[in-house]
């Protein structure tokens, strides 16, 4: 007899409960201990009444599922749909693998002096600031000087690909959200979940779906994690465009697309750029974690530092990640402030 017997008795489920007695689940460690010490005969005091959890109810009614059945069921159902999911997702995401592989190879085979020159040119184009160009040059030269060039450039390559794809998909999704309230209401909880889910949790189902050696595994994890800010800020930016200007655009007889591309997106650009900045920073955060599932780059060195307790390796590569973060942040912020200046009102 246990505390919650009355519940099942009252519901008339006693027979259903006892039916399972014969094939009773294996005894848990706690039960075994209690049996051995002879404590199970003791009456439970009223202040010791346990919470009616699944395991507690299982004690009174053997047919009631235990909580370990729940996790098992989740696992089983995932494994059941896994093959089907894989059949659909595998070809769909294959281009991501190719893109990541070819970009990594491209960065790898291109001589370092070409890569650095091109990077400088991009930085100058985005920021129009020689000061920033020299900062980037110093940082990369430092990384190269301590023989971290290859790892750093692999990390950068992955970030370029993933951030590019985030922008490519995120901005249209954000625009769609800003134009449709229902879509926005549906998407916001999903975005909230993507943003709050611990980064490691992304990896668990992906490992089951794809082979760990495939680049798309970490590609998907990075994109899912980093796409959120660009979607959110695109939606916000377009919704924040001055109503008076939208009204003016309407009064000029602009079509929807003229309004979108001529007014809304240009005016939302500062917010969109802020989203891109966040997306790039979050890709960097995730690319380090993704080294757990074979993503190359500085993350591998950090992981080595943790695994083998190589303190120096871990700290130096950590510093490298900080330098990359500074470069990426400064360059995107400089581009953002250039957009802002031309939009001042």
């Amino acid at each position, binding site marked *: 007899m246990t505390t919650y017997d009355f519940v099942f008795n009252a519901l008339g489920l006693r027979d259903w409960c006892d039916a399972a007695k014969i094939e009773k689940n294996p005894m848990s460690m706690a039960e075994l201990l209690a049996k051995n010490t002879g404590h199970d005969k003791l009456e439970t005091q009223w202040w010791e009444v346990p919470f009616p959890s699944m395991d507690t109810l299982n004690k009174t009614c053997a047919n009631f599922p235990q909580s370990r059945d729940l996790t098992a069921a989740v696992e089983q159902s995932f494994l059941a749909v896994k093959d089907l999911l894989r059949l659909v997702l595998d070809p769909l995401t294959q281009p991501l693998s190719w893109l990541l592989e070819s970009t990594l190879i491209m960065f790898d085979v291109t001589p370092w002096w070409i890569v650095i020159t091109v990077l400088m040119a991009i930085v100058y184009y985005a920021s129009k600031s020689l000061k920033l160009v020299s900062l980037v040059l110093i940082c990369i030269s430092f990384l190269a000087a301590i023989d971290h060039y290859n790892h750093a450039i692999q990390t950068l390559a992955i970030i370029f690909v993933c951030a590019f794809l985030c922008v490519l998909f995120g901005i249209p999704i954000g625009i769609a959200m800003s134009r449709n309230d229902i879509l926005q209401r549906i998407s916001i909880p999903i975005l909230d979940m993507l943003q709050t889910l611990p980064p490691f949790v992304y990896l668990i189902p992906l490992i089951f779906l794809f082979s760990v050696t495939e680049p798309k595994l970490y590609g998907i994890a990075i994109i899912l994690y980093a796409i959120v800010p660009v979607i959110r800020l695109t939606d916000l930016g377009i919704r924040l465009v*001055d109503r*008076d*200007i939208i*009204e*003016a655009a*309407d*009064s*000029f*007889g*602009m*079509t929807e697309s*003229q309004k979108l591309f*001529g*007014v809304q997106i*240009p*005016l939302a*650009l500062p917010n969109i750029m802020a989203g891109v900045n966040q997306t790039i920073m979050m890709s960097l955060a995730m690319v380090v974690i993704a080294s757990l599932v074979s993503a190359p780059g500085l993350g591998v060195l950090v992981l080595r530092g943790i695994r083998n307790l190589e303190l120096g390796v871990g700290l130096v590569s950590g510093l490298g990640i900080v330098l990359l973060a500074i470069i990426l942040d400064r360059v995107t912020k400089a581009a953002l402030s250039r957009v802002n200046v*031309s*939009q*001042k*009102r």
Partner: protein
Amino acid sequence: MKRNIKIVIRNLYKIFGSDPQKALAYIHAGMSKSELLEKHNHVLGLENINIEMREGEVTVIMGLSGSGKSTLIRHLNRLIEPTAGKIDVDGEDVLSFDEEQLRKLRREVMSMVFQNFALLPHRSVAENAGTLLEVRGAKSEECFTEAKKWLDRVGLQGFAAHYPHQLSGGMQQRVGIARALTSNSPIMLMDEAFSALDPLIRSDMQDLLLELQKELHKTIVFITHDLDEAMRLADHLIILKDGYVVQQGEPQHILLNPNDPYVEDFISDINRLRVLRVRSIMTPIKGEVPTDTHGEVDYNDTLESMIAHSGGDTSYSYVVTNDGKAVGTLEMTDLVRALVPRASSGKGAQSRAV
């Protein structure tokens, strides 16, 4: 010299709320505005508006904030849809327009100037001014030359390559006007266009508008809460209060014959010397032109200039001429009487002014 009627508004109602048609039925059944708000939570925005606007005239709609004037002007190009009523532009029923016709109307027939300018901050002044042409699909060189022409015309020579944030408020509104003019549309809707500007700039802009109007003869619908501005610009004045038209007519006529205590309150503060014209208070000539006067004055002179003219002597009288033809006589005593609001709306002046 009556001109063609360009815009006609008939029995226009606008009710804001969840079920405007039901609320409209209540209004037709005689429910008051406040009762409608209290019992059914619907706001009566516009109530039975009937207006005719003539081609080439400046129609000024005046009212305090909340009187529905901005709502009214947005009905003309259907930025706001009416609850009931009829709006004709050039004899065509605007409310029956489909999307394509409506877009054409907004692009080619009506252009709007806004209180807070509504310039696109990411585009240069010339690009802003050419927006409407660009929307229509004109080539960029054509947009630029047209925009440049009108920018020069509104006094913004050499600012084509600037950005809006580099200009002062008055200059930004000049861009707004240039934008409306560049579209070459016959109707201009000006929603409190000068209200955000400081007084000196505002009077500059009024001058600019009058000067342009003398040349271009657009049909202008102008919204304002400032009676001086209304008096200065209006050919036809409409006074709006709580969503209905209190009085409409020739501004001088309204000034001399307010038909409502509300209008009287409104006009009591105005500087009559500057606003009233000789034509409004003169006595029309019947038969002979009197010869014992102290000279001739123009039909459109203000009373202020008359006082300067006469040196303040109230015993003088003048012959009033229009295009060199004598049309009336003016006694300075009448002029002085017209300066006092109550006296002028009394019997004597009224019969003459009508």
